[in-house]
């Protein structure tokens, strides 16, 4: 199993790595610091991760742009979750427009939430 984290917050990334490791040491974690890096990586590669935690607010390419630009086929085996600190209602509404988005997660991401999404 592989989880991909796209977020410019270094602290958050470290936190998530620790958390996921504690749940299951076998879960591989791939990290990108902004949407552009992730997009470039997956541009021609089939996404092998089952779960992607995508932040909205990032430099260069934000979460929305990433969602608009990616090839759906490449992510057909992946569940994309928006993971953001924004509690802005408009962001939640906007997320519903993307059928690729499986769910909207509000930070902080707890152990329980990860267990919940990994179970599915």
């Amino acid at each position: 199993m592989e989880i991909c984290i796209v977020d410019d917050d270094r602290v958050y990334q470290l936190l998530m790595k620790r958390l996921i490791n504690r749940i299951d040491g076998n879960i591989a974690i791939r990290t990108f610091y902004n949407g552009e890096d992730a997009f470039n990586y997956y541009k021609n590669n089939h996404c092998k991760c089952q779960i992607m935690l995508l932040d909205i607010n990032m430099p260069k390419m934000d979460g929305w742009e990433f969602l608009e630009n990616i090839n759906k086929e490449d992510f057909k085996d992946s569940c994309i979750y928006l993971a953001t600190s924004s509690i802005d209602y408009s962001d939640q509404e906007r997320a519903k427009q993307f059928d690729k988005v499986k769910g909207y997660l509000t930070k902080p991401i707890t152990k329980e939430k990860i267990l919940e999404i990994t179970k599915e």
Partner: protein
Amino acid sequence: MQLEDNRYHIHWFYNHPYLLSTLTFVVVFGLSFLIAQKDLWINQEKEAHKATETLQEVEGKIDQILKSSYVTTLSIALTIDDNGKPKNFNTVAEKLFNSNPNIDGIELVPDGVIKYVYPYEKHKGAIGLNVLDYEYSKTEAKKSIESGKMFFAGPLKFKQGGFGIIGRLPVYADDGFWGFSAVMINLETFLEKSGIQNLADEGYNYRFTKINPNTGEREIFNDNNSEDFDFSKAEKIVVEDAEWEIYLGQDNSHKAFIAASPFLIFGLFLAFGCALLTYVVLQRPAQLQRYIKLQTAKLLNSEIKYKAIFQEAGMSIIHLDENEKFIEANPKFLSKTGYTIDELKGERFSKFLQLQDDSFKKLLNYDKFEGKLICKRGLKKIVRVTNSALEVNHQITHILLIEDVTKRKKSEKKLKDLQDRMQMAIRISKLAYWDWEPEKGKIRWSDRMYKIFDIDKNQKLDSDTLSNRVHPEDFEKYKQDLKRILETKEGTTLEHRILDTNNKLKHILTRVECETSENGIFKVKGTTVDQTDKKEAMINLQHSYQMVVEQNERLLNFSYIVSHNLRSHSSNIQGLIHLIRDLETFEEKKEMFNLLEEVTISLDETLTDLNEVIHIQKSDGGLVEEITLKPFLQRIKNILKREIKCNNITITENIPEGEQLKFNPAYLESVLLNIISNAIKYRDKQRNSEINLIFSETEEFKILQIKDNGIGIDLDSYKGQIFGMYETFTDFKNSRGIGLFVTNNQMKALGGKIEIESELNKGSVFTLYFKK
């Protein structure tokens, strides 16, 4: 009727000038012919009388010749003595011959035989002739013996030669017949002395004749050589002593006719003249007659028209006598008022009219008046009456046209009300109106217009009056607008600023309408309203709105910071604390605490940023001062001295000495530090970094441009986000996305602005606009 007939006859004459002039010609010519005829007759009478006189004269002369011949023969006979012999015949005969010019010879014929003759030479051939035997003379000689009186024989041929007459006086002696004493007269002499010759000279038609005693035939001795002669009609004298007959014919009538014909020619001319005159004289009345006919037809026509108008007119018409009493009223009037003509006849019109002004004593003295017409059921109608007097045969009547103006009066009142209301509306709305004829340069302004421009009402207006007052910044627009209106001739709405005579700025709104009248005059007109108050209020409102929008934007930014940045920190803290609780080893917990510290530092920075943002929004620009650019820049460079030196940055300036800006020094320091430090932070490490500061200005702004040759920004991607809060475009650790946000807000707070141009890997240009 008789007059008519007479007139008709006169007309008949007038109408036939040709006939009448012909008649005149005939009458005048006839008269002149009669006169000529009379004249001819008188002439003939005169001629006849003259002929008689002439004849009588001839008769007298012949008588005288005969008498003198008798005296001569008697005298010569006395010379015969008792012996029957003449004594001193030659001497006596010579004396007698010389004393009597009428005779051509004397002879004595004793016993019928010619014996003594004088002049001897001339007549000697006759001596010895026995006249009683001589064929030519015997009959007459015997006749003279028988009668015993002197008898003139001939004219006959003398034996001695010649042709003439012989007067023989039988002489008796004691013993009886002695012989003859005779005188001889040549025919030429006789004709001359008797005056017969003159008859021919005077043109008489005459004959000198005698019945030949021997042959019994008429012999003609002398005439005027004319062919025909009617003896029966001729006047004649008979000389008994010679049996001569002298006839005078009246055959000279042609001469009388010729004498009369000039008069006839004159008569012809006179007749022709009279006829012409008649024609000319009659022609005029004929023309007049035709004219009268035409006029009569016209009159008849107008009468028919008048009747038609009177009967069919859509307007009420009444006919009054001079005492205002009804003579006639047309159907329209009757239907309008409901009266019948019998009800009106003999009534005064004033009875049916209620005048607005009692001073109208006698209605018909006025050409026009207004009043209320009282109709049958007491209904009143406002009418306008036009009166025209009509004079026929010295009798004055009046035709009155009555126009129902009730509706018009009502609409006039409505119009007046509307006008009053409009005037009031104009007064209240402070609307000014004007019109302008560009071709004539005629301008008219309402009072309000003068008020708006603060111009004296007596000042003369021309096209410069207005254009001189247009605000200099709007003048070009004003000129364009004016040009457009005159070209397109279409209405439009314009807004301009003007300066009144006190140089007070006013905003005016003008609605323009164009109109070309039927006679081709192009007119521009419209309304103008002083909207300074409204405009200022609107500008204020716009400012307020702008401010609200900006503040809302900032608030959004603020809420965004709160929802994103602050929450990201708080969620991190939450997450870390959760994890720390779960962790067992100290090493692991220590790592988490380090992270927690990092988060708290970030949180602090965010709070500082927020503070800064709030500070801008609160301060509203703070204190504005005149800042001299060059020294101020020097201070900024001092602050950044270390970074400039370390990174080997070249800074050049292109700023005039002593150039100043109106700005808050703290803001300016913040703005310049932000942009210059950004230029250093995002320099391109592949090349020597350069920063250029360039000054320029426009009418409104002083401009400072800051150019760098750094890494640049992809403006296509980030155009709208550059000056947003927490917008970062690089992975630089210390890019927080707050500097340009603050800079933008500081510029805007003091009426300025900031713009950016940039190209990736080439560099960026930040342009700062400072309000003058």
